[in-house]
């Protein structure tokens, strides 16, 4: 279970998250939706502490860390919490100087000190799972965006994180290519992978999210089961936002 309590994040004078509380149950997929600049990425990055919350509490499984303005968490505490997470980035961010399989092995070998052979076996199994084992020895620069993102998903899963954080995993991809990534994430969801994902992709959100959190100007406007929220949003702001998403989707290639 992941519980964010009263997360506040300030960048200088700008308050980007204004006391956000979200709970994600084990094995569930939560989509963060909302207008650009609403704080989705920042909230995700506060979960794996790429950004340190100004105040609030982050709990992942048994690990918990509280933050106060001015207080700086220790390196070990950050690692303890971050070790429970894996992250998939909008721009993939594969390591360009390592092959696909080396990208997946990297965390196991460098951080967890696994022997290379064992790490390679696990990496190959993960590449198979995302349908990329035939490209194990390819350099990232030679892969399509969708293929890179699938390798990135395998890399994030390698250390067996408790939660997979995805920041707009399909928005750098053409619609044809985003399909294969949605497919992979759907499979993971069906297998019970806990995920939190920021997305503009209605197809992605409606297909795999169990819960949806609508975030605007750093606040949770509305949250609930995805079907309810998409079809009967309670708040007018949510209705308007979902209407624009649906329009965009139809202008694109349908939802």
């Amino acid at each position, binding site marked *: 279970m992941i519980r964010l309590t009263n997360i506040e994040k300030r960048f200088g004078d700008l308050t980007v998250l204004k006391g956000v509380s979200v709970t994600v149950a084990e094995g569930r997929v939560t989509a963060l939706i909302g207008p650009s600049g609403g704080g989705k990425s920042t909230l995700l990055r506060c979960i794996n502490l790429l950004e340190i919350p100004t105040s609030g509490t982050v709990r992942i499984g048994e690990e918990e860390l509280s933050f106060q303005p001015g207080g700086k968490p220790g390196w070990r505490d950050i*690692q303890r919490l971050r070790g429970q997470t894996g992250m998939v980035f909008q721009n993939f961010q594969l390591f*360009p*100087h*390592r092959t696909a399989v080396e990208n997946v092995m990297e965390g196991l070998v460098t*951080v967890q000190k696994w022997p290379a052979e064992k790490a390679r076996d696990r990496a190959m199994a993960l590449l198979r799972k995302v349908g990329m084992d035939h490209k194990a020895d390819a*350099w*990232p620069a030679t892969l399509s965006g969708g293929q890179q993102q699938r390798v990135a998903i395998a890399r994030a899963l390698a*250390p067996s994180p408790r939660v997979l954080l995805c920041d707009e995993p399909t928005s750098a991809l053409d619609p044809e290519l985003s399909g294969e990534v949605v497919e992979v994430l759907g499979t993971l969801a069906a297998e019970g992978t806990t995920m939190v994902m920021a997305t503009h992709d209605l197809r992605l959100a409606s297909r795999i999210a169990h819960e949806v959190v609508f975030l605007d100007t750093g606040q949770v406007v509305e949250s609930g089961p995805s079907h309810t929220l998409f079809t009967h949003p309670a708040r007018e702001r949510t209705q308007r936002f979902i209407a624009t998403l649906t329009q965009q989707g139809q202008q694109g290639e349908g939802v």
Partner: protein
Amino acid sequence: MLHWLTLMADSLPSLLWAALVFTVPLTLASFALGLIVGLVAAVVRLFGPAPLAAIVRFYVWIIRGTPLLVQLFLIFYGLPSAGIVLDAFPAALIGFTLNVGAYTSEIIRAVIGSVPKGQWEAAYSIGMSWSQAMRRTILPQAARVAVPPLSNSFISLVKDTSLAAAITVPELFQAAQRIVATTYEPLILYVEAALIYLALSSVLSALQVRLEKRLNQYGGFLEAKS
């Protein structure tokens, strides 16, 4: 004509010997040490506490703003007045190391900064520490971009070691000067010395090409990074 060729052939062994015993070791040692100084200086400037970063900026400012020849004279002829007496070779080694360190620190700082922030984040996201991210993710990518400018520094250094002649290091150029003093054939001897420097830099250029090829094996990642 025959006389010139004989003179060249006769002086070649002592010139090559001077190059082998002084020019090449001085170049290799001061480049290797200078790279270490440059890397540390770059990391301090990028990530270190402000006072240390200020010291590094001061060091780079002094070294880049004053002539190398003056620096060598200060170390070899000047420092003894302050009670620090160095032999010619160590004095030259220190001078060139400091010089290489200052210039390469700027190169290294730029190439480390050129690796996208997302690469740090990707490394952190799979649990790497700062030093693991630096060693495994950032430096290998920075190294590739750094090869051409660092090769420039290396090749300049080979030629700059001729300045060590002025502080009595019997390297290649000084060996040529000595033979000129007895033969009165400056044209031949300095052309010969120049050709040996040219040969040394050509070897380095060839090594640069090979290194770039090797580092380029993973394809056009510079474009793919955007």
